[in-house]
């Protein structure tokens, strides 16, 4: 029996997001669905309401917004679902001065 492939990639670990930031390009051409999880290790309350955008790319070099947005809720873990995304995914943000958070960002993929 063949089971569905799945993979969880930790795309940021113990990394501080501030100002303009983006996760490293991740290839997802084999997958049909994805969830980005963002776990805040620091800055949970202060960052409530700030957005992080899902981005797609034709080549892993040039990027545009997919439309899905993860808005930090004040909880430790937040997520955003995305499907129909081509070969590349990343998260990107542009936060105001002084906003900073230490994160673990995880990309959970499934066929």
């Amino acid at each position: 029996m063949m089971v569905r492939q799945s993979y969880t990639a930790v795309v940021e670990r113990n990394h501080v997001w501030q100002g303009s930031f983006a996760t490293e390009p991740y290839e997802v051409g084999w997958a049909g669905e994805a969830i980005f999880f963002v776990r805040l290790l620091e800055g949970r309350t202060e960052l409530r309401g700030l957005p992080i955008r899902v981005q797609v790319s034709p080549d892993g070099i040039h990027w545009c917004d997919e439309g899905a947005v993860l808005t930090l809720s004040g909880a430790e873990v937040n997520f955003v679902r995305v499907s129909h995304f081509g070969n590349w995914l990343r998260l990107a943000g542009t936060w105001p001065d002084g906003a900073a958070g230490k994160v673990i960002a995880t990309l959970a993929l499934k066929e």
Partner: protein
Amino acid sequence: MEGLHSALLRADPRLSKFNPLSRIIFYDDFDVGLQGWSELIGNYEGTLDSMLPGYDDLRPPMLSNLSMWDTGSAGSMEGMYALKIATRPSAGALSVDTKRVTWRQRGPVRLEAYFAFKPEATEMSLSEVDVRSIGVVFDVQDEKYRYMPHLRYLNAFQGKRVAHWQFKRQRAPLMPIGSSGKTVSHFHLAPENWEDVPGGRQFLCYNEIATKHNWHYLRVDLNLSSRQITGLQCNDRVHDMAGVEPMMMPAMANLWCMLNVGFFIETDVDKRAFLYLDSVLLSGEWE
């Protein structure tokens, strides 16, 4: 029996390009998934901040169809997907992915792979010296020693072509991690103390632009009895491993029969470097 074994391997189009020893420990063709490869991470206790800095961001593997901005998907050597190891776009950034098994008998082990490497194609220039190095690591323990045979192909350094195989036998001292007294660490992939494999200069097939990939064959032989790398072949070149030594340290408490293998890539410039593995085969010799 040996003839039949060989004939069966030769008749299988996936395996006939390898020369495995009599037992296949694993054969990973990344067309069917990531096959148990994961990011290397350092030891920590209590907080991730306790990790040695070299280990904090060695990047997860991904399945790549080698899609290029100018020509689309190249696919892998056989099939569509390869395992891809990518660095961050920062000179000296290193990424390492690993697979962890154990050994059954102290004898010969052979690691084979088909690989390609390139810088990210962000410039319309040859970029042939943008990737600093690619390499293979083992991390092994028996009843006396933990030892780490490491080999790398130093493609370029600070913008100059080097094209030389190197090994590493000098290691940094073990550092305590946390406060329990149970955890230690040293960064075995530090850029210092690599030594040339004698006669180990070799030119590979970079090709003529950054979006063309040629697959190369790699074979590394390790003898678990002598704790030595006994063979290195890349394409047409078989290198002499006389004098090539691993990093050695006393056996540790929780690593008995460990046999870890890993691949890495390092960038020489502020541009991502990518190592692609079409397939990896680890084989051994035992009764």
